[in-house]
C-alpha cells in the first residue's frame, strides 16, 4: 500500500495511543480497589504520558530518516479540519457526560443504592478517556479521508 508521510505519521501515532492508553486504562480497570491518587496510580499515569511522548519522538525521527518528509498541503489541512471537528464533537460530548456524572453524584443522597463516588481520580480518568477518544476520532477521520479521497 502506497502511504504518504502524513498517513504513516498518523498510523504511528494511532498505534502508540492504542497500545499505551489501552494498557493504561486496562490496568486502571483491573485495580479498582484504590480509586484515589497516590502510589501506583500516579506512577501509571505519568508513565503513560511520558511513554506516548517518547514513542512519538522516536517514531517520527525514524520516519523522517526513512521517508521523505512532506510539508502539509491544502488537502492535508482540509482533512485535518474535518478530523478536528469530529474530535471536538466527541470531546464536547465527553465533557458534558463528565459534568453530568459529577452533578448526579453530588445530588444523589448518601442512602441511594447506586451512588457513584466521584473521586478526583475517577474524574481525571474520565476526562483523560474522552481526550484519548477524541484523539483517536481525529486520527481515524484523517485515515478515512486519505483512503476514501477528499
Amino acid at each position, binding site marked *: 500500500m502506497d502511504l*504518504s508521510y502524513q498517513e504513516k505519521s498518523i498510523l504511528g501515532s494511532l498505534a502508540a495511543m492504542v497500545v499505551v492508553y489501552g494498557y493504561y486504562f486496562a490496568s486502571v480497570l483491573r485495580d479498582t480497589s484504590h480509586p484515589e491518587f497516590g502510589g501506583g496510580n500516579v506512577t501509571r499515569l505519568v508513565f503513560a504520558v511520558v511513554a506516548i511522548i517518547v514513542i512519538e519522538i522516536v517514531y517520527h525521527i525514524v520516519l523522517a530518516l526513512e521517508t521523505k518528509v512532506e510539508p502539509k*498541503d*491544502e*488537502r*492535508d489541512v482540509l482533512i485535518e479540519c474535518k478530523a478536528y471537528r469530529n474530535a471536538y464533537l466527541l470531546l464536547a460530548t465527553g465533557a458534558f457526560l463528565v459534568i453530568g456524572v459529577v452533578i448526579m453524584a453530588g445530588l444523589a443522597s448518601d442512602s441511594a443504592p447506586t451512588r457513584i463516588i466521584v473521586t478526583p481520580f475517577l474524574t481525571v480518568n474520565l476526562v483523560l478517556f474522552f481526550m484519548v477518544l477524541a484523539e483517536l476520532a481525529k486520527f481515524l477521520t484523517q485515515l478515512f479521508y486519505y483512503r*476514501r*479521497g*477528499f
Partner: protein
Amino acid sequence: MTKGHIRNNVRKLRFLGAEMTQQELAEKIGVTRQTVIAIEQDKYSPSLEVAFRIARVFGVPLEEVFQYETTDASESTE
C-alpha cells in the same frame, strides 16, 4: 436544482507535457503527490490558486484543465 461536478484533464495534460510524473507536477504546484493523485481521480477539487498553478504549468487556460459539469437533480430523482 442543478448539481455540479468538477472534472479535469490533468492526467492527459501530464502525458502530453513530456510525460511529466505526478511527483514532478506536485513539486511544481506545491502539493504532495497524493494530492495530485486525488485530483486526477476526481476525488479532490483543488483551491483556485492550485488550479491556476496547474494551468500555468501546462501553459493552457483554466477551462482546458477543469470543467464544471452540471446535472439536473430533478432528472436524477425522477
